[in-house]
């Protein structure tokens, strides 16, 4: 845990120092390009790497009644028997974290085992992911001119509380609260602390740093966003505007650096659960292997003890017991 925290702090300091010591071009231009390429190529490579491996057997985890007799109502979402059901299950899984919503917490109370409802992980995980998504969408104001229409809509809703100026976007504090919850349970929940690895803390701290610098830039250590946009747009046009870059405060470099690290770390880490969940065979398959043939591409030859071999061994007692035999036993 400490190592992860120190690593992220070190990255932040590195970026800060770098921006002061004349590495602006490396930090502001070279690194972002590299990070985007690594992210996109890496992500695609990981997905293809998984997809190259076959799914030999149909192994959905069935979470409800199967489709069998016509008057028994099947659980179409938790035990899909067709493609539509699988789509429904996957959409709910990806967008609503349906499996996590089932979560319970076991305790032994005297002589009873009690299963407490436990939805906080689901709630904060959902808050985190959606806040992060909205924050990402909001950043499109820097990526296009004119600003895409959806950005204004998202901003209007995100800032609907109309607190302060610059107007407070709810997703800012929400993402921080959610991250603190996720970090907190890794530290204070014994079981989760026991299973946590460095690679579990690191992305949390990294994203925390990314969000914290972003929020700081908006509310506390403001940078001139008009210039930021000029620079970002110049990056997108593949003609980096170093003059604009030079005018932007150091905190922007730290923010960009965290982002670049996150992008480059993403494809090679557990963060790939984002892509992996789509390929999970216990979720994305229909429970239809009794209705339709599922093919295993490496299905080996059938090798088994045949009836003939079996009868050869037991022919005499079988015949004596009056069991039908194919070949008469020799007298």
């Amino acid at each position: 845990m400490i190592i992860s925290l120190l690593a992220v702090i070190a990255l932040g300091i590195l970026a800060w120092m770098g921006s002061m010591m004349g590495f602006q071009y490396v930090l502001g231009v070279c690194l972002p390009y590299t990070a985007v390429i690594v992210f996109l190529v890496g992500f695609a490579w990981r997905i293809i790497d998984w997809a190259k491996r076959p799914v030999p057997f149909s192994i959905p985890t069935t979470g409800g009644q199967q489709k069998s007799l016509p008057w028994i109502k099947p659980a179409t979402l938790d035990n899909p028997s067709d493609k539509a059901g699988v789509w429904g299950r996957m959409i709910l899984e990806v967008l609503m974290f349906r499996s996590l919503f089932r979560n319970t917490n076991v305790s032994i109370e005297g002589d009873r085992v009690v299963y407490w409802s436990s939805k906080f992980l689901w709630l904060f995980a959902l808050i985190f992911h959606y806040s992060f998504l909205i924050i990402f969408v909001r950043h499109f104001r820097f990526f296009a001119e004119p600003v895409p229409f959806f950005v204004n809509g998202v901003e209007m809703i995100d800032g609907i509380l109309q607190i302060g100026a610059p107007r407070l976007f709810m997703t800012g504090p929400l993402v921080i609260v959610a991250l603190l919850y996720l970090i907190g349970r890794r530290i204070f929940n014994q079981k989760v602390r026991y299973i946590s690895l460095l690679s579990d803390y690191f992305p949390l701290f990294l994203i925390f740093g990314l969000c914290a610098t972003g929020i700081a830039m908006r509310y506390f250590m403001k940078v001139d966003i008009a210039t930021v946009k000029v620079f970002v747009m110049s990056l997108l046009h593949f003609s980096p505007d170093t003059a604009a870059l030079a005018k932007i405060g150091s905190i922007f470099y730290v923010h960009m650096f965290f982002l670049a690290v996150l992008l480059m770390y993403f494809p090679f880490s557990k963060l790939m659960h984002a892509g992996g969940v789509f390929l999970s065979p216990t979720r994305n398959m229909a429970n239809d292997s009794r209705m339709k043939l599922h093919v295993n591409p490496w299905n080996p030859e059938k090798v088994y003890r045949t009836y003939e071999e079996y009868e050869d061994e037991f022919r005499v007692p079988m015949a004596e017991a009056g069991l039908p035999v194919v070949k008469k036993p020799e007298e």
Partner: protein
Amino acid sequence: MAKIPSPEELMQVSYDMPRENWMDTKPEITEGAVAYPAKKVTMEPLGMPNPHDWNPFEEDWHLPENWEEIIYNGLKERLEKYRSLKLFMDICVRCGACADKCHYFIGSGDPKNMPVLRAELLRSVYRKDFTTAGKILGKLAGARKLDKDVIKEWFYYFYQCTECRRCSLYCPYGIDTAEITMMARELLHELGLGLHWIMDPVSNCNRTGNHLGITPHAFKEIVEFLCEDIEEVTGISINPTFNEPGHEVLFITPSGDAFAEPGIYTFMGYLMLFEEIGLDYTLSTYASEGGNFGLFTSSSMMKKLNAKMYAEAERLGSKWILGGECGHMWRVINQYMSTMNGPAPSCMETPVSPITGTVFENAAETKMVHIAEFTADLIKHNKIRLDPSRNDHLNVTYHDSCNPARAMGLMDEPREVLKAACNNFYEMPENTIREQTFCCGAGSGLNTDEIMEIRMRGALPRGNALRHVQEKHGVNMMSCVCAIDRATLPPLADYWAPGVDVSGMHELVANALVMKGEKKRTMDLRQEELPGMEDE
């Protein structure tokens, strides 16, 4: 056998985590902690790799010389053959949602029984050998070097997983520990390490057609003996056919039902039902096993044992196969059978109930119908007469077996049947039934007596739920559709909820079944007096 603590002592489970990192702790492999190993004489004829005699309680497990290479290559091969394995190695975020879903963790508090850590036992080795970060950062990246202690740890913990898939239900990415356990067991088998209790049934099933090693003539005798008991109770004489070609249906059920109480009563129940409805069926001694311990061994062994079903159906010219009450048998049939050994022989057709005309479209590919589906259909169409008052002395609950629940979704069919056969039916608490059901504590080949403490720990959640309905509703009968359950639930009930008995579903059906020409029933199938129906 090691002495088992009392239920009160066993309930004192602490979920506090140890101070030291899990990579630095080792399991104590003592008598009672692991089941007995498979013998060389069992493994060799089956063609299992590196068969050897060894003793888990000794320091040296006599691994083959190049054991590290075997594991490396075995893991590499499986990572390429199974997307599930590769994906499940890569995408776990260690959120901990699975942690307290495992019955062994709930009953033991052992951190490595948390599904996430059970998977990390393998994942850590995967990281070291197959990921760049693991190679460079080592322990910092959660990687560790494979050594002989890791193998022992695998043997210990992957035989404390019953492949019940309960964790998989709660995992936000559907990571299925059963998949990981199956792969780990395959790897252990590559080194010649297996369980006697799994490999002995496998070997028997291969040779004699059933797990118990019952020879064909003995099998016939046992069934005829059961028929005599049926006649004693009902006055009706039944003469099932064996290995006889030309019948519409081939009936296959786990052999445990033909051999041990209370399974035999369920077997009698099947025979009575078929007699009453006049089903045109035959039993096979060659394929006299529905269960498939190959599922707990390796995919190739599963295929080898399962292949007999279609082979026999083809030889006998059956139109479809009716399958008895069994848990893992139905995982194999539902999720593996047609892929491994299909398509079904050409003589087979989409199953149609000859009594009701119902077409079982859901079995169009495998041509195999679950008897709960079959009987629920008979009841729905009023094709059998049931007198549930004969079961009035029973307060019945139902234990969903892991595999029919989470690898098939057979949930309402057995409930419909039970509610028709019994007037007093009570569900256990909702977090312990249907898709959230708990294992009996000894599935996947762990129903052996030398690890009774582990079994009872794993049985804690189920036992506790059972005692709850016992106290609340006076439940005295737990019904189930699984032969392993019928073997493992009686000790579970005796330990956690004494006074509750265990039965298969069709035992209760047959008790309630009003048969044409039967004599007045004064006894149930166990030949115990039926309260209120004694001879006047």
